[in-house]
């Protein structure tokens, strides 16, 4: 458990894997061949056995999610790949799209077979145009070779797949907002229930998974659920892509087994950059509550361990902050993001993120007032748990964690002490 384990990333160094020939040469579509002979339930069982959990954020067990889809349905069923990848700190789906697009295609066909769906869409964030083009090319190639469309490879299975481009909206990563967007509307999340497995895209039963989740499926089918589960720790099967960024010596995307101790992960990334001391860690994208260095060093990087410690493994975006980082500014930048990305539908998120952003901006610029720290906390608490969708929580949780763990730094700001990033006293951001 000391080095990278290359499963999902096994083709990242193979420049030819993004072509069908290259993919086939590296063992591609073997999982499909096998899945074509399996009963849908057997596929779902295998995925269940693998303890694969969603790589998009919430970490929901994938096999279980698939099993919620009703067998009979009047409306067509859909398989959706969530490649919106907008969570700050996350840059992994991008690599799969670039280097291994066929693994996603294969994973989606298998998911289609498992839930008896014949139509899939890959929702790719608008900014990833070159990846969209790669994906489209791969899909076209797969069609030409009979891996997509009617009667796939003579098996009698039909599956259509298209790439779909977003146009700039973090919220469209939320599954129901993604469906709205895919239906040509504003990406406003939907009321739940009904959940997508019952009523999703066009009202049909829908499975939606993160890109990495779906691209993992072929490996599970080939290697077996048990094999995959054993790579990780109980209830947290397999490996995942960790995106190391921030003050780390060798930022990058590394595949490691779930449950890897955080110090190990940091070591893989070469430790904190420039020999500085670790100050804080974002464990799974900007939405997840932060840890102090101390807390982080005792962490195991799996869903349950991190949940126990009060945060989330999230999207796998691990951001390293060194001793010189100004936590006020960090909180401010996070809030700038959520304010910008709030869809504006519900009151606490729309007005709350705006309030927090303005207040944090003023505070960081030296305009802090007595009581501000508590005000920031209370406003965050008033967002938490009261919004239409989890975006409000995603804005409130990291803010609350920073306010709690680095309260002293806020008080120091208030007292006019020089800011650790050296920019206290001047507005650091374009406010727009």
């Amino acid at each position, binding site marked *: 458990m000391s080095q990278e384990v290359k499963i999902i990333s096994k083709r990242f160094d193979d420049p030819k894997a993004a072509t069908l020939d290259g993919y086939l040469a590296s063992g591609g579509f073997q999982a499909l061949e096998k899945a074509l002979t399996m009963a849908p339930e057997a596929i779902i069982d295998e995925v269940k056995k693998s303890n694969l959990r969603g790589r998009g954020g919430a970490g929901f067990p994938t096999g279980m999610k698939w099993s919620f889809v009703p067998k009979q349905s009047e409306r*067509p069923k859909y398989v959706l790949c969530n490649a919106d*990848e*907008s*969570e*700050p*700190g*996350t*840059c992994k*789906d*991008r690599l799969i799209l670039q280097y291994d697009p066929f693994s996603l295609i294969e994973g989606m066909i298998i998911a289609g077979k498992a839930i008896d769906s014949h139509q899939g869409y890959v929702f790719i*964030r*608008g*900014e*990833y*145009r*070159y990846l969209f083009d790669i994906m489209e090319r791969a899909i076209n190639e797969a069609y030409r070779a009979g891996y997509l469309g009617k009667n796939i490879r003579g098996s009698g299975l039909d599956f259509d797949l*298209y790439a*779909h*481009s*977003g*146009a*700039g*909206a*973090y919220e469209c990563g939320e599954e129901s907002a993604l469906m709205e*967007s*895919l*239906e*040509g*509307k*504003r*990406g406003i999340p939907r009321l739940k229930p009904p959940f997508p497995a019952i009523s999703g895209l*066009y009202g049909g039963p829908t499975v939606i998974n993160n890109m990495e989740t779906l691209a993992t499926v072929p490996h599970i089918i080939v290697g077996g659920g048990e094999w995959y589960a054993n790579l990780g720790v109980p209830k947290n099967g397999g490996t995942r892509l960790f*995106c*190391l*960024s*921030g*003050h780390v010596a060798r*930022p*990058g*995307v590394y595949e490691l087994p779930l449950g890897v101790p955080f110090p190990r992960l940091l070591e893989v990334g070469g430790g904190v950059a420039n020999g500085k001391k670790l100050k804080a860690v*974002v464990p799974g994208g*900007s939405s997840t509550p932060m840890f102090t260095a101390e807390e982080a060093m005792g962490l195991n990087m799996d869903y349950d361990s991190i949940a126990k410690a009060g945060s989330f493994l999230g999207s796998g*975006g691990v*951001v*390293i*902050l060194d001793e010189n*980082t100004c936590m006020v*500014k*960090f909180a401010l*930048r*996070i809030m700038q*993001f959520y304010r*910008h*990305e709030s*869809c504006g539908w519900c009151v606490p998120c729309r007005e709350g993120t705006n309030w927090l952003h303005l207040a944090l901006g003023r505070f960081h610029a030296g305009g802090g007032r007595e009581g501000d720290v508590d005000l920031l906390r209370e406003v965050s608490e008033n967002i938490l748990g009261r919004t239409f969708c989890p975006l409000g929580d995603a804005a409130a949780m990291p803010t609350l964690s920073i306010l709690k763990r680095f309260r002293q730094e806020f008080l120091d700001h208030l007292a006019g002490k020089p800011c650790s990033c050296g920019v206290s006293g001047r507005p*650091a*951001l*374009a406010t*727009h």
Partner: protein
Amino acid sequence: MSVFSQATQERFQTLLSHYPVKRSALVPMLLFAQDELGYLPPEAIREVGELVGASELAVREVIGYYSMLRLEPAGKYHVQVCTNISCMLRGGDDIYRHCKERLGIGHKEVAADGVFSLEEVECIGACSWAPALQVNYDFHQELTPEKVDEILRDYRKKAAAR
């Protein structure tokens, strides 16, 4: 009369064939329309709306929602600098400031000659290669101010060449 080129119109038709409901093609169509025209003028809004069977209002609602879609022209090269956390920790703000100085424009502004426009953007998924920016759809990563100068110089040359 269409405001779009033959190729874009064909692309629209292909897109429309991908969905059981025409309206589904709206967001990508708007993006492709903008790629061609540089922004979304009223004629484009009307035409795309008609193609997917959505009212002008419905199309405007959608445009307003997505941050990549715009009603005003941007520069030929739209420089989008990420300053979100991972980039910020590695000097994203400096890169952004550098771009502002070099281009002489601010957030969502277009240079007088129309070559460049600038925007401070949210995370573009280049966190592990921060700091990063995008010029139109091209990514430029692991930036330094010097590298930015080089990049801008290249684009300026390209603009002059045409």
